[in-house]
């Protein structure tokens, strides 16, 4: 009966992978507990042994890549609607490029933050937790956090502006007076990307890597 419910190939795949993943985690956890190896699961060791540079680089990578994903998502959603709507109503072509510009701004925020964050990475001498020092650890974590902040907020901002821009293009094709009103909605959507940039700048304002 369970197999009858899972008729779709995708559903079988997703269920199988999820089941395999969680059962591995469960079995490994049980084995560690039984064999009294629980001490090996050491979060503090992980956080102090990994270099702050890893966190910093992850942050920079996420900042730019998630922003670009958001911008790309928004641009293709709006762009395909503009192309489709522009066949029968060619006048919408130029005005609706504003929506594309709003999406593109999201990618620009991402690259600016990535450059700002990467400029804060300096070299330091030290290879044990004591010699590296708390300030370098804090720098690494802050840069990672800032990268996450700006990356995710730009991702969702890009998607939001994209979907609204698509609606704006199609509404403009039907009735030219609607475009300006929908543009206001887009402006609010675009503001949330800016919030991510502001918070990320605050997060990295106290970063000082080095000796």
């Amino acid at each position, binding site marked *: 009966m369970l197999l009858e419910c899972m008729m779709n190939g995708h559903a079988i795949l997703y269920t199988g992978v999820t089941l395999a993943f969680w059962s591995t985690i469960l079995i490994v956890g049980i084995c560690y507990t039984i064999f009294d190896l629980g001490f090996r699961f050491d979060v503090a060791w992980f956080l102090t042994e990994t270099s702050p540079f890893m966190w910093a680089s992850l942050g920079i990578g996420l900042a730019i890549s998630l922003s670009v994903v958001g911008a790309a998502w928004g641009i293709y959603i709006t*762009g*395909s609607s*503009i*192309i*489709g*709507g522009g066949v029968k109503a060619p006048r919408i072509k130029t005005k609706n490029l504003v929506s594309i510009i709003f999406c593109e701004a999201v990618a620009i925020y991402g690259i600016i933050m990535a450059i700002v964050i990467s400029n804060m990475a300096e070299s330091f001498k030290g290879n044990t937790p004591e010699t590296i020092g708390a300030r370098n650890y804090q720098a690494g974590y802050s840069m990672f956090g800032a990268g996450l902040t700006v990356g995710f907020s730009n991702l969702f901002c890009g998607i939001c502006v994209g979907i609204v821009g*698509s609606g704006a293009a199609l509404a403009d094709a039907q009735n030219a007076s609607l475009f300006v009103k929908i543009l206001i909605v887009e402006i609010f959507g675009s503001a949330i990307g800016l919030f991510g940039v502001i918070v990320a700048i605050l997060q990295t304002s106290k970063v000082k890597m080095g000796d």
Partner: protein
Amino acid sequence: MPVPTKCLNMKLTFNVDHGYLEGLVRGMKAGILTSTDYHNLAQCDTLEDMKLHLQSTDYGKLLSSSEEDLTVSLVDSKLRANLVTEFSCLRSNALPPLSTFLDYITYSYMIDNVVMLITGALKQRDVAELLPRCHPLGAFDQMAAVGIARTPTELYSAILVDTPLAPFFQDAVSESNLDEMEAEILRNKLYKAYIESFHSFCKNIGGVTADIMCPVLEFEADRRTFIITVNSFGTELSGADKSALYPSCGKLYPEGLRLLAKAEDHEQVKAVANCYPEYKLIFDDPEPGADFKTLEDRFFEQEVKLNMLAFLQQFHFGVFYSYVKLKEQESRNIVWIAECVTQRQKSKIHNYIPIFPGTH
């Protein structure tokens, strides 16, 4: 996956494959004639005047490019050809699942064509004279083969193997009774299989497409049920035979279908319709002073109302279906006005069904 996630997933990735076509079909929808256009057309005195007025609409030079005499049937065939051109433009650019959806739209015309060709072939009529009368939207490669086959067995294997209608034939008929069955019964059985299949396809897509398409298809199914019941008064079609023709994907299933199978006259049908608020309105007696509308007209009106709702939401397939149906209704309206104009019967000229009333 829970429905809200599926819905969101559809909105986020719809434009990858179908964004251009949705924009295109909405642009074409903007060209549907408005109440001003209908008003102008109704004022015309000849078909030439109508041709002039249609030139200023989205139809452009459609009618003026022909050399033949302007008759109502020429207008009808030109409008149909226009719709077919637009539909092929959409279909040729479509990717799955939109391509499957658009194919489903053509199957209802294919069923009409196949039934016409089968009856023609069984009466030993020449296939060449039947082919031009087929609806072009329902054309398929093996149409000529249907006419060539001379026995029901050949017909069955010619149809069954190659055409997209094969699954509907499997459900509906077996080989032996292909020639005894009357054309109408065959058509209704095929249509029942088709609309149930289309309904479950839309339901599988889920999300907004299912929200828009399922009520429209349920209405179609119930409309067929009512028409079959009303047309079967006075024939020797038994209740069990009627039940076999009723599609089960509508709102009437199961209680309404059971009651309608037993109905013997118009009053009983009306009693069944009164249990469902949407159909009560259709079967109600008109208010005194209002124009009398036939049952067909009232069904068309309700269909237009349901189809107009498709354009209120974005990122779904319902707009394509609704566009085809509304364009067809527009063709019917124009042909009605043309008939009234040529026969100089202007009293009923305003009995067309307005589409998107209230838009400028």
